[in-house]
């Protein structure tokens, strides 16, 4: 185990946990969304489903913050 970074690791893991609690969206749900996105898009275009990334993220603007889903889909 690498020494000296577990504080930052904790913060990153915590950020995701708190965010997913706040919007009631678990990692499992994200996986299901991902599978659905792949299925729907594959009907129209040729995508690289192994490199597709779908993440729950947060944007802080002013005094509030909002959650969004970031999807990156490489097209073949």
């Amino acid at each position: 185990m690498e020494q000296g970074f577990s504080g930052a690791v904790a913060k990153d893991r915590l950020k995701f946990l708190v965010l997913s609690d706040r919007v009631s969206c678990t990692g499992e749900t994200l996986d299901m969304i991902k599978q659905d996105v792949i299925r729907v898009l594959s009907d129209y275009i040729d995508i690289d489903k192994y490199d597709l990334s779908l993440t729950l993220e947060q944007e802080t603007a002013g005094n509030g913050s909002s959650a969004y889903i970031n999807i990156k889909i490489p097209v073949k």
Partner: protein
Amino acid sequence: MSEVIVVTSGKGGVGKTTTAANIGTGLAIEGKSVVMLDADIGLRNLDVVMGLENRIIYDLVQVIEGTCRLKQALVKDKRYEGLFLLPAAQTRDKTAVSPEQMVKLCESIKDEGFDYIIIDCPAGIEQGFKNAIAAADKAIVVTTPEISAVRDADRIIGMLQANGIDNSKLVLNRIRVDMVARNEMMSLEDVEEILAIDTLGIIPDEESIVIATNKGEPVVCNEGSTAGQAYRNIVKRILGEDIPLLRLMPPVRTTLFQRLFGWLRGEKE
């Protein structure tokens, strides 16, 4: 006009009861009249932390059920003028009381003219939590710099807001400055960024707190303890004073000679 402050956390074992005891005692030391209300029915402990466990005759449930009067159940802490404990029942469970009954109970305590009611909330988000926050004007959310504790604190802050308590304040407990300095522990800034609430105080992880609890004397009375100072500052902030947060310093590395000298004097590392 009394103020009702609930000390809560979500996760258990982060220092709610210790914080409630120290804030209650600290306010009494500052000359305020205080009732510390243990809302953890079935698992009461505030009496033990306060060293008052042998003086309990009646409890909160008996007051609510009318078995005794409020004044009979209030345990007076003889060490500090104006400090009283309303103990939880030990042989009942959380469903023995409803939020409405807690509101009524707090109203009757307010009628006695106390300055503060400090409520020690049980862990969890169920009935006991709902009872404890029902009558609260303000909330103090206690957490430690651990993922699980901060995550639960975030949920609690959301639930407090849903119940109309917006201005929750953070107490970050058991900070180890040496670990934060090595980036092996989240800092106050990290936790603040995630929880987005104002900080009321930070408490260093210190032996003096364990020792104080062992003796049943809140650490806030210990003039020589940094944790005690941290709680005294929290109390002053509650009273409206603008006190900067303690600048906690990592422990100075001792030389072998100093340690040897310490051992000879019987100190433990």
